[in-house]
């Protein structure tokens, strides 16, 4: 009996963890680049990167299904290597990553744009490499926004339902994340299971909000030292 509660929890945690790590680095990279890019395509690229946040999850799901499905562009490419994505665990990671990315990107970009450019220039006059400036000056100064983005991305990945159901389907023990498991528990009239899973979600969400508060307070200290 425990297994029916633990397997969605385990699937959700491994999916969300993987997706958050991916969005953390890709989001920072995109944000850093966009914060300094002022070309003609700026608004267009910005819009594309934010799109998964604005679109209904079912639209994102359909888009991913058309891309990764057996007849889709990426799906057919993967098929040459004998791999299929639809209805598999990687599909839960792909959808969670795609929908969580804009939150990481937007928060990080906002934080990078707030960083006083004279600080970076000061480091430059001291001969620091761009790589070192980013890790020792820009990122620490922007950290509260970056951390907030990571927590929001985590929460969004945890809550992802519509696109996940479309791309990963409902395979108990394999792709049934907590939100998908709750949906089917309610469909099946199994309210107890649904409520226990809801309690698990609440616990995770409160824990991640606590983590957000902790990260923020901690980094302000680092910055002021």
């Amino acid at each position: 009996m425990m297994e029916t509660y633990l397997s969605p929890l385990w699937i959700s945690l491994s999916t969300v963890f993987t997706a958050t790590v991916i969005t953390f680095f890709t989001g920072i990279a995109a944000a850093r680049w966009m914060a300094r890019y002022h070309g003609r395509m700026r608004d267009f690229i910005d819009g594309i990167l934010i799109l998964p946040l604005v679109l209904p999850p079912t639209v994102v799901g359909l888009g991913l299904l058309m891309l990764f499905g057996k007849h889709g562009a990426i799906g057919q490419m993967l098929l040459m290597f004998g791999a299929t994505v639809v209805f598999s665990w990687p599909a839960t990671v792909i959808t969670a990553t795609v929908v969580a990315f804009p939150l990481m990107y937007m928060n990080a970009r906002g934080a990078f744009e707030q960083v006083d450019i004279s600080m970076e220039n000061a480091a430059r006059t001291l001969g620091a490499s761009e790589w070192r400036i980013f890790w020792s000056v820009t990122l620490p100064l922007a950290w509260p926004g970056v951390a907030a983005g990571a927590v929001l991305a985590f929460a969004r990945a945890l809550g992802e339902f519509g696109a996940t159901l479309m791309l990963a389907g409902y395979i108990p023990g394999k792709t049934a994340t907590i939100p998908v498991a709750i949906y089917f528990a309610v469909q099946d009239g199994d309210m107890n299971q649904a409520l226990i899973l809801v309690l698990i979600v609440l616990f995770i969400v409160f824990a991640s909000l606590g983590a957000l508060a902790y990260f923020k307070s901690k980094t302000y200290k680092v910055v002021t030292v």
Partner: protein
Amino acid sequence: MDSRYAVYVSISLLLIVYLCIGCSTQAATVNVSAGAGLTDAISEINVLYKQGRPDVSVIANFAAAGTLQQQIENGAPADVFISPSPKHMDMLQAKHLIIENTRRDLLRNKVVLIIPGDSTLRITGFKDLTGDMVKKVAIGDPESVPVGMYAQEIFIEYGIMDALKSRLVLAGTVRQVLQYVESSNVDAGVVFMTDAKTSTDVQIVANAPDDINNKVVYPVAVIDTGKDRAAAVDYEEFLLGSQAGSVFEKYGFSVIAH
């Protein structure tokens, strides 16, 4: 208090009042809850029904029978319920949510195994699903989708349930199973014969054993909590009549004579 605040409150109250008026001032309305596989047949029958009764509006709600049963138990508007499985009707009957003497057996159907039209796998029977080349098999969620329940019974009868367990993708309705197979995203699926016939992109490769097919009966009944009972009974009679019967037969259902 801010006067702007008062404006917001009164606007929202006004909207709520409008909503309430909107949902109570309907003439005769029949809310039909029917299994997802009945979508085409019932939609066509509703057009015929309205030709004779232009003042009656028929609202159809298509979903898995288990989902509909949950909705009815939780008070969703429903006057007539058609389920592809006696089980879900029995559960409503046990809770006294249907009018017992209106319950009739309406239709029969068959359960089939389908594969994508362009499939190169050699699947000619249910037992072939355990083969190494078969990666994913779609069935309805057995708890809420009747055809998924029948699929599970077939797998148990053939003794292949345990071998298939990790390959099963559970769908929310029979039409979703069909779509999974049509798009080739699964290797095979279990649907009703009538659903398989609506698609040109799938091939039927096996029939369920007779003892399963004999169980596939679609009961219909009037819901006890419905608003307009006379209209609901009239609609049910229409479903049992010859005009509706020929539509059902056109879509491949067998009509049970009364």
